């Protein structure tokens, strides 16, 4: 019944460093009463300004606390987890009190709702009436969909003209006032309900004059946007998987209900390998990379959080493995997934994980993926026997495979990665964006799995 999270996994769960630190301070029995645990949960009452009831679900690591903090997990929940890791014997195995039972039931009910196990609820007013209303609803949905598609097509028409205009006037002028026009164009795309394209366009505003080869990089990216809009105009000519991808890339999200029926469910022991946080527009995007032990499938768990607070709904046990059911979004190369159901508590990763032996092999899988879905942006790279190389006193960073072939590491310095390597090969886990590798974690011979702090700029 011992909780087997590492301090690192825990640090990754905490929404920020303050919460982690405050939580560590609370990891002392004197702050707690009525501590306990059973097979499903850990709980305790923490003495703060009031007595707060804290409860953690073992499988999903979802937490509940009666404190008013808006951060999840709050410091009390982190405190309870810290205590459970460092002094498990302080939490006696006992029967869960009523308030814990009640929360677990509520929590279970809401996750079943989400996983769609109860989606076949009987219609209220008889079979016939039900079908009629369902048909009506279906019709309504189709009409709404058609209206939206029309609107999107009008938006794309305008966007394509603008794009051609940009090329006619030349990219050399794209700075200052001109970039504000790009922002306006992105806003127009939002109005036309094409947020995916709007977001992609906004990220391009940072490209001009950012590096020596920016004209080529910008032209390539604009070209990919043009391909995307062209693809949507001729959607019917694409096969059904790619149609889904184009819709998603433009920001036409799949309703939750539909995802449940059309998405692919995959059960496996999933390895939670790394996480990257990026701010896009006014939104925090969290990308968690997982790998299925038996299926060998890679999945990207995406979460978004608005504003300054990086409050994400789901907590993932990085550096752990867990049996779970994942739901993949339909597509030509299903990559994005959602964690549908936890089937076991998380346990630390094994000492070795499957990965590619060379960059050539890795890039070949990337090429194959792109052949099926050309708008993929990120790829999980697990390279065995990888050697980080630091040149020019830390000005240039590369990762070299066992054959002496290298790819550049992301902009910034990677001293922690170098500290783990010490000039010896290790298993590298990172994210490839087509140009550079962003390190996320390593599997080192002695230390095992270690998450890396984001590189310093």
């Amino acid at each position, binding site marked *: 019944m011992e909780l087997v999270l590492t301090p690192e996994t825990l640090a990754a769960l905490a929404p920020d460093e303050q919460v982690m630190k405050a939580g560590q301070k609370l990891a002392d029995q004197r702050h707690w009463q009525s501590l306990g645990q059973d097979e499903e949960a850990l709980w305790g009452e923490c003495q703060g300004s009031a007595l707060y009831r804290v409860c953690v679900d073992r499988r999903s690591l979802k937490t509940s606390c009666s404190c008013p903090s808006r951060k999840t997990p709050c410091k009390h929940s982190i405190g309870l987890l810290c205590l459970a890791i460092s002094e498990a014997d302080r939490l006696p195995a006992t029967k869960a009190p009523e308030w814990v039972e009640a929360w677990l039931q509520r929590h279970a009910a809401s996750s079943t709702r989400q996983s769609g196990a109860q989606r076949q609820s009987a219609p209220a007013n008889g079979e016939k009436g039900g079908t009629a209303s369902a048909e009506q609803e279906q019709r309504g949905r189709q009409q709404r969909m058609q209206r939206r598609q029309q609107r999107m097509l009008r938006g794309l028409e305008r966007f394509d003209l603008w794009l051609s205009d940009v090329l006619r006037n030349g990219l050399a002028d794209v700075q200052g006032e001109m970039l504000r026009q790009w922002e306006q164009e992105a806003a127009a795309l939002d109005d036309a309900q094409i947020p995916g394209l709007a977001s992609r366009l906004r990220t391009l505003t940072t490209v001009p004059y950012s590096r020596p080869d920016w004209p080529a990089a910008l032209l*390539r990216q604009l070209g990919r946007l043009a391909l995307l809009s062209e693809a949507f105009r001729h959607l019917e000519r694409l096969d059904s998987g790619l149609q889904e991808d184009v819709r998603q890339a433009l920001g036409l999200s799949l309703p939750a209900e539909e995802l449940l029926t059309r998405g692919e469910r995959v059960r496996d022991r999933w390895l939670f390998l790394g996480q990257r946080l990026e701010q896009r527009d006014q939104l925090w995007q969290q990308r968690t990379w997982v790998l299925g032990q038996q299926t060998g499938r890679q999945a990207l768990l995406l979460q978004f959080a608005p504003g300054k607070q990086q409050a994400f709904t789901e907590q993932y046990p990085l550096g752990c493995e867990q049996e779970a059911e994942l739901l993949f979004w339909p597509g030509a190369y299903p990559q994005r997934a959602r964690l549908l159901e936890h089937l076991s508590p998380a346990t630390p990763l094994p000492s070795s994980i499957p990965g590619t032996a060379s960059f050539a092999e890795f890039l070949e899988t990337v090429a194959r993926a792109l052949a099926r879905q050309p708008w993929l942006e990120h790829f999980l790279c697990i390279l065995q026997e990888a050697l980080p190389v630091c040149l020019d006193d830390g000005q240039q960073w590369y990762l070299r495979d066992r054959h002496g072939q290298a790819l550049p590491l992301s902009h910034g310095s990677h001293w922690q990665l170098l500290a783990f390597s010490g000039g010896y090969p290790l298993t590298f886990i990172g994210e490839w964006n087509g140009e550079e590798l962003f390190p996320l974690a390593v599997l080192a011979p002695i230390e095992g799995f270690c998450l890396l702090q984001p590189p310093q700029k």
Partner: protein
Amino acid sequence: MSRMSRIESLVHCALIGTRQEPPPPALASTPFERLLDELPAAMLLERKLLLLAGAEAVYALAGTSPFPLGVAVIPAPAEKLPPCSPQAAALIKSVLQESHSELLPLALELLARHGRRLPFSLLPTVFAALARPSAAATWPVLAQVIGERGRWLIRQNPSWRILLSSLPVTELSEQELNSLWYEGSFAGRLALLRQLRTYNRPLARQWLEEVWPQEQREQRLALLETFEIGLEQDDEAFLEKVRNRRSYQERRLAVSLLLRLPSSACRRELPVVAHGLLQREQQSEEGYVVRVVLPETPPPSWQRFGIEQKSLSEGQKQHVSWLQELISLVPPGYWEERLQLSPASIVHSLESTWRTEVLAGLVQATRRHRLPSWARALLSWADAATHEPLAGAEDLLSCLEQEEAEQFLLQALASSQHAWHARWPALLTRLPRPWSTSFGVSFLEHMQKRLQELANHPSMDRGFAEPEIRQLARAAMQWHQQWEPALKIAARALPANCLELALQLAQPLQQSEELEARNIYFIKRDVNRQIITFIEEITFHHRLLREFENQ
């Protein structure tokens, strides 16, 4: 065709704009010609160009290939020490996140004491925090805790190379030594010179002689002070040369070092200078007084001792300064021998006219020569009128053995009649760490008593009379001057077996009803906050120790 050249012609017209620079007739290169043919002929040229660029982008992305990188990487040697546990690492990481934490030096000290090293993951953060001159005080312990990986890593990052000076010089290559000494920052050079004074004194002397004339004055003094480490007869030649310098401070520092060499020429000159300066004068059958007999002007022979008359007009003031300076140079044992009196007798029989100057000089001399008997006598001295101890005498506590020093401090803490009763925290900072158990326990008892007194202070509800307000102001002042700094020191200095007791005593007071009920601002806010910090720091100390012991 390379990734660049395929798209080069497209980029050229895209940059300038198709309005001014129409694209070439053969827009697409291999393998995109066919793609272009499939597009409707009526399509805008710009659109075609964009779609072509998009196709090329995907093509290039899918066709990325790695490049050979043939540089040789020399790996770090294998580790000799075990790392600390992941839990200990997590604790140390938590203090690293605080920018001005005083707990990091404690954590490093504990690591060193338990023969553990920092985990690889924390090395970069620790180096970033400590690779600046202001953190130089923590450098000496680094060599014991960074392991082989740390040594290897320091050498990779130019902004960490200053830390090489914290390593034993025997570990550094000749090139590293040279670059640290000739190109490094002053703090790094100073640290390196200290190391050299331990491991390679001939080189230290050689280097110092080379650069001596070009250094700035303040820096010269700091460099000269490194001679205190491993001072030996071979240093005499160089120090004698310094005695000819223009700066009297340099001369004086050189003399104070030379006087510590029993067979130095300077030591033989001493009687010439000091002879007759202090004289024992019998007053009655039993009584005597130690008198100061000053020459009108300092004789020229004193110049090479760094003592000279600057201007006659300053008269009395001038006497004051050179008398004190001279006394500070002379090994105090010299007076014992000349006057045939014990240190305590000399200190207590000084005639009043020059007493202050002589005592101040003796304090400095004792600090340099580290003589317990003199330290004892000077520490116990109190001004008859003000009951104040001697200024700067707190430094002499380090001349005593730990047990005696602790006893002395406990007496000061316990008795309001003691000269150091109001200034005991100054002594506390000089105690060696960790404290002994008995001292730790006594300290905690005093702390608890003081806190209880504060908790029992009458509340302001009833309104205060003036004497009460004055008493309260005194209590507040006393807290800020004494217990606030003392708790900070104690959190790091308490021995392992006192930490639980510290928590037991302090925890009930944290937000205790008694303290909370005081509507006196400083008790409610300041005292409470400081107790909370104390508890946090003790908890950290306690947990880290437990981690090391359980490992």
